[in-house]
């Protein structure tokens, strides 16, 4: 459905996106994750034909997103990261305008989706809260029953109950064979709907993984309290153990299931006063593997972050 091949984008001397290749299959939801400024919005706006690739290509169902953008837009519904609407137009008028531009009559479908999201289409866009603007953007994106949904942080600002409605709309879309690219800066937002996730950092795609595989490698949070001082080194050597932190007689670390046995043997070699082991949320597993700390990355790659800040939104 979607194919990015060696896609790169430079703004002046800063590289916002560097040689990204990925494919999205029909019926698949692809979670596109990365800290703010990593290149998510740049990728999405390249895919929407708003930006011209510096090199590489992006295509939707074989159509080039830059040279055949009009044909691509017939197949795609888009929720921009900063949902910009016409302040003086109401929801109904937005629906009417976009319907005319698409030469379709999607009024009924729009009303139905708005109803499910509990959005009042009669109000002018400038009077809508951030969450309601987001909902209107979602209505406009899905009303034409597109083959592909391109969603730039679509659920930010939407409360959890409405997020669930949005997720079910997304599932209906994929059941009908549609695909989606769903960007977010937190895993929690996409883990319930994404089939695969891609992690982008400083303009590079650093990992693509099935969500199931990630779950299989899910980490356990281990804490132990010893009767004597211990050193971090004796636990860090166990293969697979991550994030080892020792504070005097306190140990805390993360370990995949496969490392638990070896770790436990090391721990029990000492005199233990207290022990705790629990499965970490997927979010933590993810953070541990891909270190998505926003500040850390922004500080390490100020140029890339700045480039997107200027061109994002």
């Amino acid at each position, binding site marked *: 459905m979607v194919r990015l091949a060696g896609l790169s984008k430079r703004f002046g001397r800063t590289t916002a996106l560097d040689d990204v290749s990925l494919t999205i299959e029909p019926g698949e939801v692809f979670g596109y994750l990365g800290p703010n400024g990593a290149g998510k919005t740049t990728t999405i706006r390249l895919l929407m034909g*708003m930006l011209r690739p510096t090199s590489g290509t992006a295509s939707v169902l074989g159509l080039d997103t830059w040279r055949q953008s009009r*044909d691509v*837009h017939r197949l795609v*519904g888009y929720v921009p990261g900063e949902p*910009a609407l016409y302040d003086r137009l109401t929801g109904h008028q937005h629906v009417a*305008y*976009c319907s005319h531009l698409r030469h379709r009559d999607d009024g009924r479908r729009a009303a139905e989706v708005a109803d499910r999201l509990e959005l009042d289409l009669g109000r002018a866009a400038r009077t809508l809260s951030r969450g309601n603007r987001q909902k209107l953007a979602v209505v406009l994106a899905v009303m034409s029953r597109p083959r592909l949904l391109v969603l730039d942080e679509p659920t930010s600002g939407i409360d959890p109950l409405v997020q669930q409605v949005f997720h079910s709309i997304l599932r209906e879309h994929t059941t009908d064979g549609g695909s989606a690219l769903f960007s977010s800066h937190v895993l929690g937002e996409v883990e319930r709907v994404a089939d695969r996730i891609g992690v982008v950092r400083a303009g590079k795609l650093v990992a693509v993984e099935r969500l199931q595989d990630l779950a299989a490698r899910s980490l356990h949070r281990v804490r132990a309290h010893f009767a004597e001082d211990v050193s971090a080194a004796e636990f860090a050597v166990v293969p697979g153990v991550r994030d080892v932190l020792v504070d005097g007689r306190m140990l805390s670390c993360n370990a995949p299931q496969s490392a638990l046995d070896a770790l436990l043997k090391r721990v029990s070699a000492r005199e233990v006063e207290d022990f705790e082991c629990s499965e970490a949320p997927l979010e933590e597993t993810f953070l541990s593997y891909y270190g998505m700390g926003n500040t850390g990355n922004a500080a390490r790659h100020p140029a890339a972050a700045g480039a997107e800040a200027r061109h*994002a939104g």
Partner: protein
Amino acid sequence: MLASVLLKTLRDQARQLLAWALSLVLIVAMYAAVWPSVQSQPSISGFIEQMPEAFRSLFATSSADMSTPTGYIQVELLSFMGPIAVLIYAVSAGAGAIGGEEDRHTMDLLLSNPVGRGRVVVDKFLAMVAGTFVLAAVMGVSLVLEGSLVDLVLPADMVAAAMLHLALLGVVFGSLALALSAGTGRTGISRGVPAVLAVLAYIVNALAPLVEVFDRIQKVSPFFQYIAHDPLRNGTAWDSVLVSAATIAVLVALAVAGFRRRDVAG
């Protein structure tokens, strides 16, 4: 009014256009109101003749005779106030056309629909043309109607010709603003450059009889196409219309090409 980019743009401009139209009606009414006292004071013509030549060229076109309705309107309205009003509207409409939607971040929404970028530029251009012609028409109708109330009698066909040339002047600079807006996405530059060029073009045309360099490039000035042949007295000059139309066509083509090849600001 939401059936196309053209109609949507006109709808967005409706209030602004109404305000401009009203101002024009009032400006013309003001000139009409002053007319009886000007007419009864033939010395005003003498006053103009006594002005330094450079001054006279700048503020009064050619051999204007303030004691005739045609001369009076020529000096008072067509040399200065009329072009300023039409140019301000056309240039701001052209500059806001593409860059304005980018500034308000609505271009992503518009372009995510299956609408070509060329289509967007052309529709925005047509909206600017429509608005400019509406304003020129309002000015022309006000001139004829309000003038007839105070014995400021102007031949309607000559007024129509003058307004056609005035509208074309507006559209030329409006198209330049549109081309800059489409090519750069920057509203400030797209407004400022045509404004400065309009002032220069005005000066070149006005001072051509006095400054030799200006005389040589006078014909390039859109103000030459607009007023040099004295449309209020001589009617439409089709060669000038053609030159203006060709200029506009080139600028619109540049606008389409410029917008097609650049990144859209989100």
